[in-house]
């Protein structure tokens, strides 16, 4: 069976999959027990499965695990915890920026990736960066406020 090694949230992990086309999302959720990233569409259209690979936001439902070999993967669990949230997560908590929350992991990851590139992103820049992350509950306004809060801009 193909074997892949990569870093997940800072720890070296080795996984085996029967086929080399298994998406990273399935490996994270089912083999590594990291269920924060969600399956939304399997088509790269909604962003619910977003994780960081070497700091870039990627759709883990579309990325074969083979493509992550030797790279560094950060999932939502690797950012922070309810007790010690990452600053972006803390901003989301302050703004209560989740309803059902199914899109939340992906939205948080995409926001973290943006702010790593543009720590002082504007509202328009956040809107553009999150254009590929769908939210059905209509939490957008709070998410935008949370992202701006995380930039240090008063929302």
């Amino acid at each position, binding site marked *: 069976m193909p074997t892949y090694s990569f870093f997940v949230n800072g720890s070296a992990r080795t996984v085996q999959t029967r086929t080399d086309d298994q998406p990273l999302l399935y490996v994270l959720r089912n083999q590594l027990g990291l269920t924060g990233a969600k399956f*939304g569409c399997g088509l790269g259209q909604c962003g619910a499965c977003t994780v960081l690979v070497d700091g870039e936001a990627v759709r883990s439902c579309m990325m074969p695990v083979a493509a992550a070999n030797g790279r560094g993967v950060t999932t939502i669990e690797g950012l922070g915890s*309810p007790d010690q949230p990452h600053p972006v997560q803390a901003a989301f*908590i302050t703004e209560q920026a989740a*309803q059902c929350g199914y899109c939340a992991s992906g939205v948080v990851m995409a926001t973290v990736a943006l702010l790593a590139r543009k720590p002082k992103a504007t509202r328009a820049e956040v809107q553009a960066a999150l254009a*590929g992350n769908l939210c059905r509950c209509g939490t957008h306004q709070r998410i935008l406020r949370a992202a701006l809060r995380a930039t240090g801009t008063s929302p």
Partner: protein
Amino acid sequence: MSRREPVAVSRRAVLAGGGALVVAFSLPLPGRGQQPPVVEKALGKTLDPTEVDGFLAVNADGSVSLFCGKVDLGTGLRIAIPQMAAEELGIGVERIVLVEGDTALTPDQGPTAGSTGIMRGGVQIRQAAATARAALLRLAAARLGVPAEALEVVNGEVRPKEGGQGVGFAALIGEQQFNLRLDPQAPLKDPGSYGIVGRSMPRPDVPRKVTGRHPYIHDLKLPDMLHARVIRPQAVGARLLDVDDTAVRDIPGVQVVRLGSFVGVVAPDEWDAELAARALVTRWSPASSLVGHEGVPAWMRKGPFDADQKLVGKGDARAVLASAAKKLSATYYWPTQSHASMGPSCAVADIREGKATIWSASQATHRFRRTIARLLDLPLEAVRVVYVDGSGCYGMNGHDDAAADAALLSRAVGRPVRVQWSRADELGWDPKGPPQMLALEGAVGADGQIAAWRTQMWIPRATANLPNIPLLGPADAGMAQPPGIATGLISQNGDPPYATPNVEVLVHWLKDAPLRPSNIRAPGKIANSFAVESFVDDLAAQARIDPVEFRLKGLSDARGAEVIRRAARMLDWKARPSPGPGGLGRGIAYVHYKHGETYVAVAMEAEVDPGSGAIRVRRVACAQDCGLVINPNAAMQQVEGNILQTLSRTLLEEVTFDAAGVTSVDWARYPILTFPDVPEIMIDLVDQPQSPPLGVGEAASTPVPAALANAIFDATGARLRTVPFTAERVKAALAAARRT
């Protein structure tokens, strides 16, 4: 390699028993076979909603378990109902443990639908808490030898008002039953003394949701669980002719399950199940002949009809309209729409040894329990349905279908089975919000008020007392199910909420819907209000009266008038008739939800690019009076969600289908609102602490489409009467407006 427990957080929190509001998930913990202690201990308790013990229990540590038949669908009920109970009991909300929707633990409080979570479910639990508080006072009076009137309940302790030694809940009744009927007359606290209700307390699930720790149904794992995919028919109603499993035979552990025309694959590995579903070759009978989405309006006019029904008949609308000097008429159409949940439906079932346990994101676990018992021919006592959060559903999406799929597959393979739908399954096969058509006629009198009004509706008629909509898997498997359709209450709010001496509302009930329907957020009311409040604007424009003034003139309900004034004020509304001078337009719409619940007015600013037909919504202002507000921040979040989701439905959404089935099966073909198109939103909640709490989950969605249509009319003079407001429809309406 260790596997992380998906519910570890909640379990730790339960064990820690303090610090934050605890939500107990009665999920089995993989590898331990254990459940959170309060849940484990409570099994066997009464589920009687007329008993205090049905709803609450005092634990050994003095914390209080609440057993709630309503569930949090991402809606904030998880904080709001504990706030109501904590307030009434006299204990901190952080000492409440909430159990939701587990049929083995919670009373049947009906489906979490129709904005009834707080106004019915919460109010019922509040009354149980009030009854319990009175009992705690009596127990403490006996224990302390003082009259109950001299005692008060504070922070989980009953103590003399004068000061002195008190006694805690645990000492009074910890781990014992109240054995007390819920007293509908038990006195409630004066809202003026509230310290917990009315505060924007943070929702306990948000930290878990934004850190990836919140347990969703999709994350549940049981020992020996298999992953499954269901292969849905190639066309609606098609029968399975044969299955060729040659291509899947080399996938480890794969099993193909066929029951009539129901076919699924199960495998120990989820990706293997997915690969098997893709590789399995199935052959189906030819398609049934659906009308197709473009054929729906003509189909609605033609029937077959069940009956006509006059819902409102006041004065003589037809006669007055026939003799009116100036009469307007218009037809409005609302298309079939999907719940379009972000996560596809998912469920886990364990059907073995004559017992069934199902973990589901169902809005109605108790109802589904009865359905499953009937389908599997099991005694009701042998079936347990446990609610676990799903992706937001906004009505009945595929959650019950997926749970039935899992049940059929688990029974067939004798192991726990997790079914997850695909994106195409969800958009293609979730029961749909049905299409609606309305034809309106109206005339304004010399007094500048509506003199006569007539509404005709063409809508599918829901089957009376249908226990459950026919579910896909059992239908394909050839299992008997009570036939019928469900829609929610889709005929409400079809008449103007303004003084009108002559009104007729006539429903042409259709026997069926083009695609299997169900309730979708604010069922029917959104389309009806879209038509009514757009048409009110047309009448106001014809009479050359400002739209706000026109509405206020006909509105005697002070609470309704107040939300209209507040919404207009937020947009700095200047009185003048529509259309305006061009550029940025403004529109307003109002609803008294279901004719007797929440009051909402939405005002909106929008502009149109005449070249492209693109609509830009700038600002949305919403004023809402939903009576007593339990948690303002959570209520506002529902209002925001209503506004944005309904803008999405109005601007973008229509389920497209051909003769065989749904063709809008991904997010490219069923687009929804995205971040770049999010307007600024302003919300004003009217504070009504002395009034009963009303629903917030749906009402504010209702005026949104008409407010937008009215803003576009104000900006351009063009009137949009068909949803979604596509660029083509905008351009056609602009061209029509130029001609007149």
